[in-house]
C-alpha cells in the first residue's frame, strides 16, 4: 500500500528562511544566519573561531563543495541524539550519510528548545526535522529542474544529487546549492514526505558520529576545554548541605605555589543554585587541588547538621501510622474492600538517596571579556545555565553565550546548572578564562540526588484471585523553598507520586496518600525520575499479591490491565495510558522469554514487570540464578519495547536499552548513599560502588514492536521495569522478597 503524506503546515510562517553565503550555499532553518561553524569548535572561543563573533543558526547548510552540514541542537550526553536526529533530516533530504558533517549548535533561541531530558528530544523534533529535510529536497529538485528547463515531475533526488529520469542527467547538491538558495520556500502542501518504505537511512544501524574522535582521544567534552591564558579553579562547599562560610585561611592559600587567587563566594540558599563556598584559582588543575588540601574553612552548617538517614527512616515509620498529609487518589471503598478481601498482603518498601555519578565530573569554563560572558559546559539544559547565571550574577541573557560541549554522561544531573553558575561566579572575579573542575568527591557529595523514599502498602485479592484493593502511603522528601516571601514544601524531583501512577485507575478500591519529610538534601531528576523506583515498588508488590492469590504473575497482570483500549488520564495534565500497547509488549516479552514454559531448578527463577514512562511502553523478563550462599547472577534479560512507528537508529536504540538495563541493575545491586549530620558519608567509587563488567548479564535481548504511533524517545523508559523483573525472579528462585534497596540489604541465601 502506498500512502502520500503531506507534512503539517508550519506553525510559524518564518520557520523556514534562507540566505546565500559563502559563495552560493543553501541554508535552511528557523532563522538562517550565516556560515557553517568550524566543526572542531570545542577549544576555540567564538570570537577567535570566526573573527566576527558570528553564530551559526541554521540546521542545514549545503556548500558548493557538496558537503552537507547539519546542526545538532540538543546536547549529546551519550543518548546518541547527535546521530539520530540529523539522520531524520538526512533521510528526507536524500543525502548520503557519508556526505554529511554534523556540528553541535550553541545555545541559541533560533533552535527552539535545546533541553535533553525526559526522553523528549526525539518526539518534539521528529516531525519538524522531517519537514526541514523534505523542504530542502524540494527546493534542490526545483533548482535542478529550472537549470535543465524540464518539469519538476521528471526529476527526483537520491544520493545527494537530483536526477532527470528521461535523460539520465544528474546534478550534485553542491552544484545546485547556489540556485536553490535563490528560490522561494515552497508551501507546506507542496512538500511531500517520503514513503517510509523508501527509507534508506532511518532504521539502519548507524555508528555515533563522534566515534572516530572518541576512540582517538580528541577533545570533545567540557573538561577538555582549553583557552589561551586559562586558569583552573576548585570550589569548596560546606560538607553539610548549604552551610555558610564563617572564615577561611585565604592568605595561607594565596601564598601557595601556583595559586593566583582564593576568595569566598557568599552564595545563596537555593540548594540548586549558587551555594556559599571558597574558590581557589590556580595555574593548573593540580595546583588548585594541592592548595585545596591546605584549605581550612569554618562553616556555619545550620539546621541541616541534625539530619541523618536513620533519623528520616525513624520518622517515616512514625508517619506510616498516621493518615497521609495528602490524598492523591481515592476510588471506591479501600478500607472496606481490604477488610472484605479473601487475602491481604501488607509490606513496607524503601530505597536510599543515590547519586548520578556521571563519569565526567561536573565542570564548566567561563570567560568574562568584551562586556560579555562566554561559557562552555557539558549540560543537558543549556537554557537553565544561562538563566541561572543571568539571575544570580545580574547579567542580561543577551550577554551570556553558552557553548554546549559533549557530556560524559548525564542521567539528569546536568539538567541542573549549579556548576555552571559557580564557574561564572569565580570567573567574574578573575581577568582570564577559568575552568572549574569538580573532584569526584565534590560530585558525589554535592549532587542533586535521587530522593530516597518509603512506601507502606496494603493490597487485597478476592476469592477468585483478582486484585480488588490497593493502599499506598508514600513517605517522601521535600525541601523548604521560599517564593515571594512565603515558604512552602517542594518534593524532590521524582519524589511525588501522581494519582494516576499504575495501578491507580485500575483497581476499583484504591487509596494513594503521600507525606513529605522536610529535609535539607538537594534533589534533582535522575534517569526516569519517579519511575526508576515506583516501578520497582509497585511491580514487586503486584507480584506479592499474585503469589498470595496463587496466580501466574503474567496472567494476574494481564487481568489487571483489563480489556479497555486506552485509559484516559485524570485531570488536565493526565497522560492517557494505552492498554493495548502495554499488553502488546507484555505478550511479546512473555513469548520471547518462554515465560512459564521453562523447567527451572531451585535457585533459578524468572520475573516479569512492565512500565509506561516517557511515552514508552516497556516490559521485561529477567532470568536469574541465585547461589545457595546468596550470590545473584542475572543470566538473561528480555526486553520488549513499543516507542512507536520507527526505531530511528537501531544501534543507538540497543545501546540505550542495554545501557538502561545494566544501569538499573547497578542501581538495584549497589547504589546507596548514607547521610549523617547533614552530609553524605561516601566519597568516591570505593565506598560508592557502581556496576562493573563482570555483573553485566551475558545476554540482553531487545525486541521492538513497531506500532502505528508517533515516534518517541528511549533514553529512560527501558530503565524502570528491570529492578522489579529481577526482584520478582529472585523471589521465584529463592522465596526471598526484596523490599529494600540496594540488594546487599537483603540476605538471599537459601538451603
Amino acid at each position, binding site marked *: 500500500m502506498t500512502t502520500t503524506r503531506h507534512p503539517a503546515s508550519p506553525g510559524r510562517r518564518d520557520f523556514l528562511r534562507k540566505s546565500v553565503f559563502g559563495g552560493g550555499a543553501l541554508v535552511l532553518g528557523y532563522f538562517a544566519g550565516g556560515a557553517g561553524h568550524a566543526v572542531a569548535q570545542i577549544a576555540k572561543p567564538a570570537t577567535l573561531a570566526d573573527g566576527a563573533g558570528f553564530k551559526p543558526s541554521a540546521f542545514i547548510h549545503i556548500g558548493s563543495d557538496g558537503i552537507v552540514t547539519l546542526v545538532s541542537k540538543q546536547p*549529546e*550526553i*551519550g*543518548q*546518541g541524539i547527535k546521530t539520530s536526529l540529523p539522520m531524520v533530516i538526512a533521510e528526507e533530504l536524500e543525502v548520503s550519510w557519508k556526505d554529511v558533517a554534523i556540528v553541535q549548535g550553541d545555545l541559541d533561541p533560533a533552535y527552539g528548545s535545546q533541553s535533553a531530558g525526559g526522553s523528549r528530544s526525539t518526539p518534539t523534533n521528529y516531525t519538524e526535522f522531517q519537514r526541514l529535510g523534505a523542504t530542502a529536497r524540494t527546493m534542490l529538485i526545483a533548482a535542478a529542474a529550472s537549470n535543465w528547463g524540464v518539469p519538476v515531475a521528471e526529476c527526483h533526488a537520491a544520493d545527494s544529487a537530483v536526477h532527470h529520469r528521461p535523460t539520465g542527467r544528474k546534478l550534485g547538491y553542491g552544484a545546485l546549492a547556489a540556485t536553490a538558495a535563490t528560490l522561494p520556500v515552497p508551501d507546506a502542501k507542496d512538500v511531500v514526505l517520503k514513503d517510509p518504505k523508501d527509507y534508506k537511512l532511518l532504521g539502519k*544501524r*548507524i*555508528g*555515533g558520529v*563522534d*566515534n*572516530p574522535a*572518541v*576512540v*582517538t*582521544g*580528541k*577533545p*570533545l567534552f567540557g*573538561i*577538555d576545554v*582549553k583557552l589561551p591564558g586559562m586558569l583552573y579553579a576548585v570550589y569548596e562547599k560546606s560538607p553539610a548541605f548549604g552551610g555558610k562560610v564563617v572564615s577561611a585561611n585565604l592568605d595561607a592559600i594565596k601564598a601557595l*605555589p*601556583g595559586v593566583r587567587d582564593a576568595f569566598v563566594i557568599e552564595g545563596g540558599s537555593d540548594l540548586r543554585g549558587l551555594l556559599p563556598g571558597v574558590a581557589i584559582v590556580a595555574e*593548573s*588543575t*593540580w*595546583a588548585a*587541588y*594541592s592548595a585545596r588540601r591546605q584549605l581550612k574553612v569554618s562553616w556555619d552548617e545550620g539546621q541541616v547538621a541534625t539530619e541523618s538517614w536513620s533519623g528520616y527512616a525513624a520518622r517515616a515509620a512514625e508517619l506510616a501510622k498516621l493518615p497521609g498529609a495528602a490524598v492523591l487518589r481515592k476510588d471506591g471503598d479501600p478500607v472496606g474492600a481490604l477488610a472484605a478481601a479473601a487475602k491481604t498482603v501488607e509490606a513496607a518498601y524503601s530505597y536510599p538517596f543515590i547519586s548520578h*555519578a*556521571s*563519569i*565526567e*565530573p561536573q565542570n564548566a569554563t567561563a570567560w568574562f571579556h568584551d562586556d560579555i560572558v562566554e561559557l562552555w559546559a557539558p549540560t543537558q539544559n543549556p537554557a537553565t545555565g544561562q538563566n541561572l547565571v543571568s539571575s544570580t550574577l545580574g547579567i542580561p541573557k543577551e550577554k551570556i553565550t553558552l557553548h554546549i560541549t*559533549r*557530556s*560524559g*554522561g*548525564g542521567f539528569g544531573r546536568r539538567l541542573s546548572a549549579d556548576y555552571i553558575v559557580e564557574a561564572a561566579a569565580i570567573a567574574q572575579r578573575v581577568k582570564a578564562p577559568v575552568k572549574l*573542575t569538580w*573532584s*569526584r568527591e565534590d560530585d558525589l557529595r554535592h549532587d542533586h540526588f535521587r530522593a530516597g523514599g518509603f512506601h507502606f502498602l496494603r493490597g487485597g485479592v478476592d476469592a477468585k484471585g483478582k486484585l480488588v484493593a490497593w493502599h499506598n502511603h508514600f513517605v517522601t522528601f521535600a525541601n523548604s523553598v521560599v517564593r515571594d516571601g512565603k515558604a512552602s514544601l517542594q518534593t524532590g524531583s521524582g519524589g511525588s507520586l501522581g494519582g494516576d501512577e499504575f495501578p491507580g485507575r485500575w483497581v476499583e478500591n484504591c487509596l494513594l496518600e503521600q507525606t513529605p519529610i522536610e529535609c535539607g538534601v538537594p534533589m534533582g531528576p535522575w534517569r526516569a525520575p519517579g519511575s526508576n523506583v515506583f516501578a520497582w515498588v509497585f511491580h514487586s508488590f503486584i507480584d506479592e499479591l499474585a503469589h498470595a492469590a496463587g496466580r501466574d504473575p503474567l496472567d494476574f497482570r494481564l487481568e489487571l490491565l483489563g480489556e479497555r483500549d486506552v485509559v484516559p488520564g485524570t485531570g488536565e495534565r493526565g497522560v492517557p495510558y494505552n492498554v493495548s500497547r502495554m499488553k502488546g509488549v507484555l505478550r511479546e516479552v512473555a513469548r520471547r522469554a518462554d515465560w512459564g514454559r521453562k523447567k527451572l531448578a531451585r535457585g533459578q527463577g524468572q520475573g516479569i514487570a512492565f512500565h509506561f514512562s516517557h511515552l514508552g511502553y516497556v516490559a521485561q523478563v529477567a532470568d536469574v540464578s541465585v547461589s545457595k550462599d546468596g550470590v545473584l547472577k542475572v543470566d538473561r534479560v528480555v526486553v520488549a519495547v513499543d516507542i512507536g512507528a520507527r526505531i530511528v537508529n537501531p544501534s543507538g536504540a540497543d*545501546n*540505550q536499552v*542495554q*545501557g538502561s*538495563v*545494566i*544501569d538499573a541493575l*547497578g542501581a538495584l545491586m549497589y547504589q546507596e548513599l548514607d547521610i549523617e549530620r547533614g552530609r553524605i558519608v561516601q566519597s*568516591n*567509587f*570505593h565506598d560508592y560502588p*557502581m*556496576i*562493573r*563488567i563482570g555483573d*553485566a548479564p*551475558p545476554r540482553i535481548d531487545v525486541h521492538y514492536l513497531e506500532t502505528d504511533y508517533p515516534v518517541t524517545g528511549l533514553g529512560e523508559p527501558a530503565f524502570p521495569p528491570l529492578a522489579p523483573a529481577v526482584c520478582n525472579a529472585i523471589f521465584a528462585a529463592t522465596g526471598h522478597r526484596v523490599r529494600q534497596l540496594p540488594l546487599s540489604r537483603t540476605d538471599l541465601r537459601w538451603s
Partner: protein
Amino acid sequence: MTKYVLNINGAAQTVDVVPDTPLLWVLRDTLELVGTKFGCGAGHCGACTVHLNGVPTRSCMTPVSTVGRKQVTTIEGLDARGTHPLQRAWQELDVPQCGYCQAGQIMTAAALLQENPNPTDEEIEGALAGNLCRCATYLRIRAGVRRAAELAKEERSA
C-alpha cells in the same frame, strides 16, 4: 617546579612541573593530550589508563617524578593512524555511548590483547574489571574486544 624529559607517544617532551603532579594532569593540562580522562583521581575508575612500557597504569596515581625514562603511551599514540584493531572494532560495533570512559577501556584492552591475543570472556572481564563505564556499554565492550582480536588475527595473517 622541576624539569622532566618524558617519553610520550614516542617523542621526548620537556615539562616543568611540581614533582608530585600526577601524570594525568601533566598530560591534560601541560601537554594538552586530553584523551586521557579524569574520573575519580583515586585509582577506582580506570578512565585515566595509559601504558607505561606497555603496562596499563592509572595515570592519576602516577606522580610525574616516578615516570623517568619509561615509554608513556596514551590513546592519542596507541596507533599512528587511529586504526588499532580496538579502535576499528569500537567503531564497527558502535561501542561508545557518552564515550568518556572509552579511552581507558581501549588502553586496558590493548594491553590485554598484547599479552593474550585470544582472550576468553572471563579473561576480558578480569582485565577490564577496573574500568567503570557509567553508561554501561559493557556488552559491546566485551564484543568489541573479541572483534578486535579477530581483526588483529586477520592483520597478522594478511
